[in-house]
Each structure stands twice: as structure tokens, then as C-alpha cells.
């Protein structure tokens, strides 16, 4: 199984930037974290606004979502669109190895780019607010950034697998995936407009750690459900008939 997963990883790594339009699309998507990580800290009045608040977590949420939103459809729906899926399924590779191999490349790629963006943000605040010593993320923010970005990447990947299995094209899968993940953000904004004060009061009564634990728990639950569904759905007999 381990060798089978490594084989899929080998191919996915080769294919990641070689898919038609893939290189330019991915480079374009990678521009977003770079710009966010450089521009956002420059607008603050002090380094702690970046290292001790939830602002860096925006990167931990948005960047994996965008990157996985591009790579997962390309990897799964793309295999069907390019008519290579059936031949791959006719090979001796177990379903699980195909799924894990493809899923891992997208998740690891997105997570590494996110961590690089967070590091870039840290470099930016250190340069702008240089006071003779290095500043780092507070432990809560650092742990939050690490875990939220990983959980976002895996959750979007699981959802992306499910959507890609039903989509005929990469574009269709990408658009559906983005819509699904942007919808909660839009809903949150709508709710915030009508219940901004009670929300602020409620959040002010909680400390950062408590809030982080709740967010992480919610993400873990969604993550487990979505990925369990994806693993269950990714079966040869089902895939061949879609």
C-alpha cells in the first residue's frame, strides 16, 4: 500500500504543473497568498496586530481553500475529463492508494504554500517594525494557523473529491467547490450585519484559546465527515458508472 501511494504521489507531482493551463493557473492562485502576506502586515500600526490577532488566520483559511480548490478538481475530475480515469482504475492500484495519493499531493502542496505565506507575513512585520529583536507569532496564533490551515486543506480536499466524482469537467468541479466554501462566509457576513453586537459581546466573553478550540473542534468534525464520505464514495464500481 505504501509503495502504491508513493507511485500515485510520483505521478501527481509530475502532473501538478503539467496539466494544460495548470502552471499558470496555480501560479496565479499562489500570487494571492504572497500579496496577502506582504500587503496586510504593512497596513498595521504594530507587529502584534499581525502576530497576536486573528488576521493571519485569514491566510490560514483562504489560501488552502483556494489552492486545494484548484488542484483537487484537476486531479480527480481532470482524470475523467482527460479520459485517463478508466485506464487508471484498470490497473492493480487499490482504490485507497489512488485516493490517498491524489489527496495528499493537493493537501501537502496547499499547506506548504500557506505556511510559506505565513512565514512571509512574519518576515514582513519584522522588516517593517524592526526594533532590534525578532518578533514571532504568539503560541495561540501559531498553533491556530498551523492547525486551521491543515484542517482547511483536508476539509476542502475531501469536499473536492466528492464534488469531482460527480462533475464532468474540472471547471464545473472548481466552481461548485468554491461556491460551497464561499457560501458559509457570505452567510456569516449576513448574520454579522443583523447580530453584530450580540456576536461581539459573546466573543468578548471568551478568551482566544477557547475560541480556537471551538473552531478547531467544528473543523475536525466537518473534516472527518467529509473525508469519510469521500473515502466511501471513491470505489471503482461507482466511479466507472458516473
Amino acid at each position, binding site marked *: 500500500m505504501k*509503495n*502504491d501511494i508513493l*507511485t500515485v504521489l*510520483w*505521478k501527481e507531482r*509530475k*502532473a501538478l504543473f*503539467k*496539466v*494544460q493551463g495548470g502552471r499558470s493557473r496555480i501560479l496565479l492562485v499562489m500570487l494571492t497568498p504572497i500579496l496577502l502576506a506582504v500587503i496586510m502586515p504593512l497596513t498595521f500600526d504594530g507587529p502584534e496586530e499581525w502576530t497576536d490577532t486573528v488576521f493571519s488566520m485569514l491566510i490560514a483559511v483562504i489560501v488552502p481553500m483556494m489552492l486545494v480548490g484548484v488542484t483537487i478538481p484537476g486531479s480527480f475530475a481532470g482524470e475523467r475529463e*482527460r*479520459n*485517463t480515469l*478508466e*485506464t*487508471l*482504475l*484498470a*490497473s*492493480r*492500484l*487499490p482504490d485507497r492508494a489512488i485516493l490517498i495519493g491524489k489527496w495528499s499531493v493537493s493537501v501537502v502542496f496547499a499547506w506548504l504554500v500557506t505556511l510559506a505565506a505565513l512565514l512571509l507575513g512574519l518576515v514582513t512585520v519584522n522588516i517593517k517594525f524592526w526594533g532590534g529583536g525578532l518578533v514571532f507569532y504568539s503560541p495561540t496564533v501559531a498553533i491556530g494557523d498551523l492547525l486551521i490551515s491543515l484542517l482547511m486543506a483536508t476539509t476542502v480536499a475531501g469536499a473536492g473529491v466528492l464534488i469531482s466524482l460527480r462533475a464532468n469537467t474540472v471547471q464545473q468541479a472548481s466552481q461548485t467547490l468554491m461556491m460551497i466554501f464561499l457560501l458559509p462566509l457570505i452567510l456569516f457576513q449576513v448574520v454579522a450585519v443583523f447580530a453584530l453586537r450580540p456576536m461581539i459581546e459573546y466573543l468578548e466573553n471568551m478568551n482566544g484559546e477557547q475560541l480556537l478550540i471551538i473552531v478547531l473542534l467544528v473543523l475536525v468534525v466537518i473534516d472527518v465527515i467529509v473525508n469519510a464520505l469521500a473515502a466511501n464514495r471513491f470505489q*471503482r*464500481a461507482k466511479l*466507472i*458508472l458516473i
Partner: protein
Amino acid sequence: MSNNAIRIENMSRDFDTTRALDGLSLEVDAGTVFGFLGPNGAGKTTTIRLLLGLLEPTSGRAEVLGYDTVTQAEEVRARTGALLENSGIYEQMSAEDNLEFYGRINEMSKSERNARIKELLTNIGLWDRRKEKAADWSRGMRQKLALARAMFHRPPLVLLDEPTAGLDVSSAVAVREDLTLLAAREGVTVFLTTHNMGEAEKICNQVGVIRAGKLVTIGHPDDLRAQAGKPQVEIVGRGFSEHALELLRARPEVASVESRNGRLTIDLHETTDPAPFVSLLVQEGAQVEEVHRGSASLEDVFLTLMEEEK
């Protein structure tokens, strides 16, 4: 011990309300190049998918190389090579990487993979272009590469779903030649579906005809021609008058006579000496240049079988 590479027992497969395969029973001996012939929608692709364990039968069962296609599907897939409806080539990857990937899938060592890539690409005349992206190749070249990929791990059985479909004549001939060459050199059993009768006639030593999910007949192409095809005499010449044709049609051994562009085709009820036909035509003022005895082609056999089934 059974010498069957493939053994299908009363296998059926339904899709919703459609029965794609209807009680198919079939045995293919090891070392055979077996052609599975049938019109579009006859159940050929479904059979290949069932043999590879990509689909499960609604009823019945199949064994490939002694392994059950449902309970031992991974064993089946590990020992077979497949070229399906689409070539399955990763077009943005090089030819070398496409083969490398399938070598890794089949757990071949690095030295084994390298040697095999060189051997196969040399055999099909593509070694010098191994670094090029498959997307830059013609469809025929990609199909040849897909054929090499199917045979890459030296499987004892390869399943090919219409390997020359959609190719121009010269590409189809090239793929056929490569298939014949590789099959002979590798000693593999080949199960190929096609609706190209000429192809089946040229490369298969056993054929089965399927229609509406049912096996209509099976045998060596020559035997099928002998069984189902009617004997023929073809006479080439000039001055075949209508009266002469009427006299020929009136003979008891003659089933039908057709004249087109100085070529007279006489279908017979049974094999007979063509000399009396020639004499008759000469007496009626015709000039005979050539006489050929013939039997129906596999295409004629196929069309006859399809008509009989209607």
C-alpha cells in the same frame, strides 16, 4: 489443469432496465488472439469491464487467469494489461513517463523499467521521441504507446477495446502490425473487441460474435466462414448479357448472380466446379478473363449472423 485464460459462465449485467449482457458463456484458451466482434452497443465494452472487475455481474461469474473477477479483482488487474475505449495516455507527460508510471504501478524495479521502456519503444519505433509530450503526437502514435503500456509489465493476458477505432488506415495498419508483433514476441493471450471484420480476420485465431448481449457464434474465422458463409465464384470479363445472367440464375446450384463493372459474382448453394458457368458465358458471347473461387469474408458471415438474429 484448465488451459483457459478466460472463462465466463452464464454472465449477465443489467443497467437499470437495460440488459447489456445476457447469459454470456465463453472460454478463451491461453495463447489465443481472440476477437470479440459485435455492433455498437452489443456488450463488448461491458464484457471487458466485467473481466477487469471494474463492474460486477448481475448474475453469473467469470474467471480470468484462474482468478474470480469479483472476489479476486486485484489479482486479475495485476496480471492483465488493458487498452480501453480511450487510450488513457497522460498527454502532458512524456512517453517515457507514461510507461514509467505503469512500471511503478506494477512494482517493477528501476533497472527493469528502464530496460523495458527502451525495448518496447524501440519495437514500436518511438524510442527517439521518448522525451516528447504525448500531446504532441498523432493519435496513432499515442495508441501505439498505449499498446506498449498495456504490455509493459509482461502480463499473460491483454484486453484491448477496439484498439484501432478512430485511426486512419495507415495508423490502424501500424497498430495492428505492432499488436501482432508484440503478441507473438511476448506470447500473451489477447482478447480484443472490434467491429472491424478485416482486422479480426487478419490477427485473430479465434472469434466470437456477440449481439444484444448474447453470444451468437464462436470459432476460428475459417470455420465460421465455412459454416455461415456461402461458396462463391467470381468471374472477371466483358459482354455479360442479361440473357446469360438469366441462364446462370436458372441453374439449381446457383443462389444469386450479380454483375457489376465487368465482375460477375455468383453465390452458390454448395461448392461446385465453375467450368460449366464459364462455358455457358462463352457460348453466350462473353469474354472471360479471370475466374476465382471464393468463400464469404468474415464480414459476410457477420452480416448473415446479424440478419439471422433479427
